[in-house]
């Protein structure tokens, strides 16, 4: 995801910043028939030259417009009254009525708080673990052992969320393994899935199980780029393994850590809607219900499309602001940005 900002120079040189020193013959490879001397071409020339390439764009762009941009515009129903059977874009303007509705809705604020807590907890617990695991893998001398650990810990990443929730139900049920362990310790069994106070723990644990292994990939890649000579120099200076880790390995991973952290902060409100939807039940709503599941019930179970769209739009806008600010911070701090 992370991309270095200094993108390779485009073949085309923008008019205006043509360096004086550049010889005129420097770009025969990129200069194509139909280009004006300034390196730009007109649309008619571009179409004549590249029409086959443009046909490649037809279907994808049509798809983008219909399945991405039309729904974006469809959000106008947040400000319009929607009548089932009427226009997808609603019938009449009602201004900010639906926005006001959710701002005054205590349930909305409860699910908003739940979303922040669940997203924050996930970030706090799940983010550091891949770094730790990567460091631990890095200390292994047997390549075979390392490979085996990687293969095993990547596996959960490829499981459907339905399967993961199935595992959660099986392990935490009254006759499941977790309760057997509790009983063998002399504790009372707990009906975890029905207890609101356990929801966050279960949710975050399942995230740890599924994502931590695969999350090491980028860190392990960063580790391979650290120059061996640094370690040699450190050893000659008498640094022990811990000091080598602290002064060489961690600084070597820092850019990756910072970029991923910022990206994660940018998306932390996007808690796993599908997982929550599968895992929660009315007994656990008080901690489990998040913005996306609430708007799902409001919109698709109760049929208040406009109200739900208003909530969805609000959530999407917060997400957008978070991502954009995270990206701006990232650009500033480490010179890496998403685009």
């Amino acid at each position: 995801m992370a991309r270095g900002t200094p993108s390779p120079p485009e073949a085309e040189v923008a008019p205006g910043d043509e360096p004086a020193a550049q010889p005129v013959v420097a770009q025969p490879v990129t200069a194509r028939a139909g280009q004006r001397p300034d390196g730009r071409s007109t649309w008619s020339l571009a179409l004549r030259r590249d029409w086959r390439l443009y046909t490649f764009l037809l279907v994808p762009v049509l798809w983008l417009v219909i399945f991405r941009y039309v729904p974006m515009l469809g959000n106008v129903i947040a400000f319009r009254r929607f009548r089932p059977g009427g226009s997808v874009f609603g019938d009449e303007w009602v201004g900010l009525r639906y926005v006001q509705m959710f701002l005054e809705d205590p349930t909305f604020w409860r699910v908003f708080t739940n979303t922040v807590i669940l997203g924050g907890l996930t970030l706090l617990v799940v983010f550091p673990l891949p770094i730790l695991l990567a460091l631990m893998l890095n200390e292994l001398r047997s390549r075979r052992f390392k490979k085996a650990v990687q293969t095993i810990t990547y596996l959960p990443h490829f499981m459907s969320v339905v399967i993961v929730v199935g595992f959660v139900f099986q392990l935490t049920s009254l006759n499941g393994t977790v309760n057997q362990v509790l009983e063998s310790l002399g504790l009372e069994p707990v009906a975890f899935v029905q207890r609101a106070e356990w929801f966050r723990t279960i949710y975050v644990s399942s995230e740890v199980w599924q994502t931590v292994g695969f999350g090491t990939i980028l860190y392990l890649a960063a580790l391979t780029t650290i120059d061996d000579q640094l370690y040699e120099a450190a050893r000659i200076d008498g640094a022990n393994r811990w000091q080598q880790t602290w002064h060489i390995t961690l600084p070597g991973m820092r850019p990756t850590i910072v970029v991923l952290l910022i990206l994660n902060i940018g998306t932390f409100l996007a808690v796993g809607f599908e997982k929550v939807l599968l895992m929660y039940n009315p007994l656990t709503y008080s901690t489990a219900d998040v913005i996306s599941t609430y708007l799902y019930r409001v919109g698709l179970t109760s049929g208040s499309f406009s109200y739900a769209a208003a909530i969805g739009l609000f959530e999407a806008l917060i997400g957008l602001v978070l991502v954009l600010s995270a990206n701006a911070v990232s650009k500033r701090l480490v010179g890496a940005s998403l685009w």
Partner: protein
Amino acid sequence: MVTTNPVPDISAVRAVTTTIKDTPAYTIFRVVNAVVLVTICFVTLYPFVNLVAKAFSSQGYILAGEVNLWPRGFNLTTFDWVFHDERFWTNYGNTVVYTVVATAISMVITTTFAYALSKRHLKGRAFFVGMLVVTMFFNGGLIPNYLLISELGWKNTIWAIVVPNAISAFNLLVMKSFFENFPAELEEAAAIDGLTTYGIFLRVVLPLSKAVVATMILFYAVSFWNSWFPAFLYLSDPDLQPVTLYLRNLLAAASGAGQESGMEAVQIGANLQAVAMLLTVIPIIAIYPFVQKYFVTGVMLGSVKG
């Protein structure tokens, strides 16, 4: 450890520094580290082991909470029941069809789009890339999408599953950056030999991009195989549902969350769940060891330069 070489050249230093004995503390650390990693592997695999154990156990032992690592009261009647459950196999077949069709559509759109966008001289390229990138950060949301699919009349059709999620912008950018690094000389040579853009793309570029194409196919196929929510939203006809939804209905019935599935909670034994889950994950686990490296490559491709 002291080297006997009067002039320590680099290889000697290397030999010495890499053979320095571990301090006792570090030896302890290495042992602890290995033990912790083995434990992590065990915890990662445990749900799968437990699943297999439950799938082959009899209901009584499961309900008594006595099935952990291996089957108790070995029993295949649930397998027999599932094997004879037409709904399960219909849904399983649906999953296969949806995965194949959706992956095919995704690949056609992704490769052609990425190829066109990888041509730096293409006029309007920045605009089209921008159009794509915007969708990574802002999307229409649940309700407008739902209304759109309803309006198209796609509810209870395969199109609701295979078309609206055809493009992953992330996969597309990976593909685009791969094509950007494709040696231009090869394409130019093919053009001189008289191939059109179509010919170059189909007969030169794609055949030489097999690894990245395979990676993309895997990414898409796994995500479609695992997907359940679009089907949950748009396919109310049980005969059209994918197997993930069959599973979801089992889970919902067992936890009492969904009455709409029409299954008696009593008959949904823990081992029926286990058997259905097992049969669903088997294809992924079976191919996983062979394709794992492609996934890793895919992630690296996406991160090194997107």
